């Protein structure tokens, strides 16, 4: 997750990421570049903001719901921009940006029922937002204060898992627990395109299929595993992998929040009804760097990013809302104001976040501290105390 910071390209990287934070309105009627040949891609909202129908997936969303989806997308982008800035100013050790993946995450998160359980990687800030996790509890992880301050049980959102793919097995096991409890709930396992190469992810899919576990694998294919492109991970489109495991695979336009919502909702419902797992490939693009320590200019062309900016997940919903009269300028201004308040709250909260006491590392290693660890903690405290009054 933390490659060495490249010593060149710094200026360009900063300008790239700041350039992509604006929401640019598509020109009505102008054709955005379409995704490369995409048989079976589920799309309900085109990059130009046109609603389209799909034979298998439809969605009935109220105007209010559309506005609130827009609000979520815009607020998590603002949070993300603020966190990137805080990292640049030395307030966070690192930040894993979700820029460009907002629709995939908000759509997936909004498809979940209250009792469903999400198993995120380390980039699912959008899902965290939907599950009611305080952004500062996510920030605290990247600041190095703790490993994530939220309650995974209360929020139905597990702590971030940094080792790639390990959480897909946890989601599958939890789903097996739901089965044993007779609960009508499901789990949503997040993973990226790189993770599909991991043995544990393949084991999770075998397990899920063998036990018909109520788990949905939600793969955000953002085209890169840090620097390695998808072609190095798979000879076939990722969603087609599901067929080999014996359950459905669907490719959805990951920058289309409505399609993601519709597809994920259907998959979770099928899982809750005992129909077993589904693999969703949300076809999207990581518009920023892998993390703030990464330099994407070393492995991809700026022209590729420019193409994807025209498929921006927020711009297309904004275009739709504007053109259909569902939202007016006052609404957008209101969301922007709210976003600024959120950013200010995140900034203030981050700057005020206290370092944990040194003894915190000894806490909760075990349910009850072992005598060995208690002795080490006592040594540590005595050592620290030896500096008191010495000016160190």
């Amino acid at each position: 997750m933390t490659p060495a910071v490249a010593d060149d390209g710094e200026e360009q990287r900063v300008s790239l990421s700041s350039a992509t934070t604006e929401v640019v309105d598509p020109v009505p009627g102008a054709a955005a570049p379409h995704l490369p040949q995409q048989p079976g891609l589920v799309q309900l909202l085109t990059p130009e903001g046109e609603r389209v129908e799909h034979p298998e997936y439809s969605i009935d969303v109220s105007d209010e719901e559309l506005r609130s989806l827009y609000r979520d997308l815009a607020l998590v982008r603002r949070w993300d921009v603020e966190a990137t800035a805080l990292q640049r100013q030395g307030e966070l050790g690192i930040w894993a940006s979700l820029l460009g993946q907002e629709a995939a995450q908000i759509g997936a998160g909004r498809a979940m029922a209250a009792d469903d359980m999400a198993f995120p990687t380390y980039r699912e800030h959008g899902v965290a937002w939907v599950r009611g996790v305080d952004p500062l509890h996510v920030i605290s992880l990247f600041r190095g204060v703790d490993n994530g301050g939220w309650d995974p049980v209360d929020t139905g959102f597990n702590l971030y898992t940094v080792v790639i793919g390990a959480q897909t097995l946890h989601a599958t096991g939890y789903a097996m627990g739901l089965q044993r409890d007779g609960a009508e709930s499901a789990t949503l396992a997040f993973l990226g395109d790189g993770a599909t190469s991991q043995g544990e992810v393949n084991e999770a899919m075998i397990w899920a299929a063998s036990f018909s576990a109520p788990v949905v694998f939600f793969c955000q294919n953002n085209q890169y595993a840090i620097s390695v492109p998808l072609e190095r991970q798979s000879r076939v489109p990722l969603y087609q992998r599901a067929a080999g495991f014996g359950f459905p695979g669907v490719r959805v336009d990951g920058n289309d929040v409505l399609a993601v919502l519709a597809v994920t909702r259907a998959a979770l419902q099928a899982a809750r009804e005992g129909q077993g797992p589904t693999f969703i490939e949300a076809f999207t693009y990581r518009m920023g760097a892998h993390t703030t320590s990464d330099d994407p200019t070393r492995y991809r062309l700026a022209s590729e990013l420019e193409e994807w900016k025209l498929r921006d997940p927020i711009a297309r919903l904004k275009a739709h809302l504007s053109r259909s009269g569902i939202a007016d300028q006052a609404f957008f201004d209101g969301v922007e104001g709210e976003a600024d308040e959120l950013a200010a709250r995140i900034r203030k909260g981050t700057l005020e976040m206290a370092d944990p006491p040194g003894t915190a590392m000894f806490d909760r290693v075990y349910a009850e501290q072992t005598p060995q660890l208690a002795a080490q903690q006592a040594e540590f405290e005595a050592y620290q105390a030896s500096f008191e009054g010495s000016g160190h």
Partner: protein
Amino acid sequence: MAETLTIGKALNLGLRRAMEDDAKVVLMGEDIGRLGGVFRITDGLQKDFGEDRVVDTPLAEAGILGTAVGLAMRGYRPVCEIQFDGFVFPAYNQIVTQVAKIHARSRGRLAMPIVIRIPFGGGIGAVEHHSESPEAYFAHTPGLKVVAVSNPVDAYWGIQQAIAHPDPIVFLEPKRRYWEKAEVDPDATPDPLFASRVVRGGDDVTVLAYGPMVKTALQAAEAAAEEGRSLEVVDLRTLSPLDLDPVFDSVRRTGRCVVVHEAAVTLGLGAEIAARVTEQCFHSLEAPVLRVGGYDTPYPPSKLEEEYLPDLDRVLDAVDRSMGF
């Protein structure tokens, strides 16, 4: 009423009791259901408790441990069988990066009451990967606990105590001793799980062992007694956390200490114990703490394992060297 049981049967009965006591106990592993496990430790349990509680898993150890994590998060108490010691490594990532760390990561919000049963050690004439002693890897990992049983009584109680315990435990079973017998009284009060035990009193040298080597150490003590030497034998029982206070008491009396294990000596449990005994008993020691263990080679083909494994004579040789200082 007391009953004579093998270690294998004692484990089977202990698992049965644990499953009766707590409906959240779920056994998971390869071939543990219909077959009853390759060592038959889970024999008959699937028939009585059903396929949801005794789960024949796909052949993937990371899958066993990774799904156990999810089940534990949901309130279950998974007991995972790793078929042989050398097969635990595909699950190593889940054990070390997840099972061991989730309680601390979640600041105590998520408990990981997972038991990882591993038949360990050599001496059964097996092919590669079936005779290993991986305990130091796990004892080195904060967040895990590691115990090793040496006899039917500890097997019967220990497995129940481990399952009821809130932390993840690597539970090591001495596979070559599975057929050793002893009286087990199910109405007795068991010793605590995380406590070492003096199993034979003596005055000249303190010999420490665990798992399959306890019997070897006791045999050595028997032989030494015939030569007029009195060995005190301690069954360590818990490898993480270590319970060394009884060891320190013993070494302060004898002034000499020999640690025995099958695992390779370099950076094995013996190294840690030697350091601690030296720190705590420095002024009582008449000789350096000596280690008897496997050589720093891959576990050899079975025709060589008798030369590789510590036996009575190698323990006595170390005792001689200790006495000779």
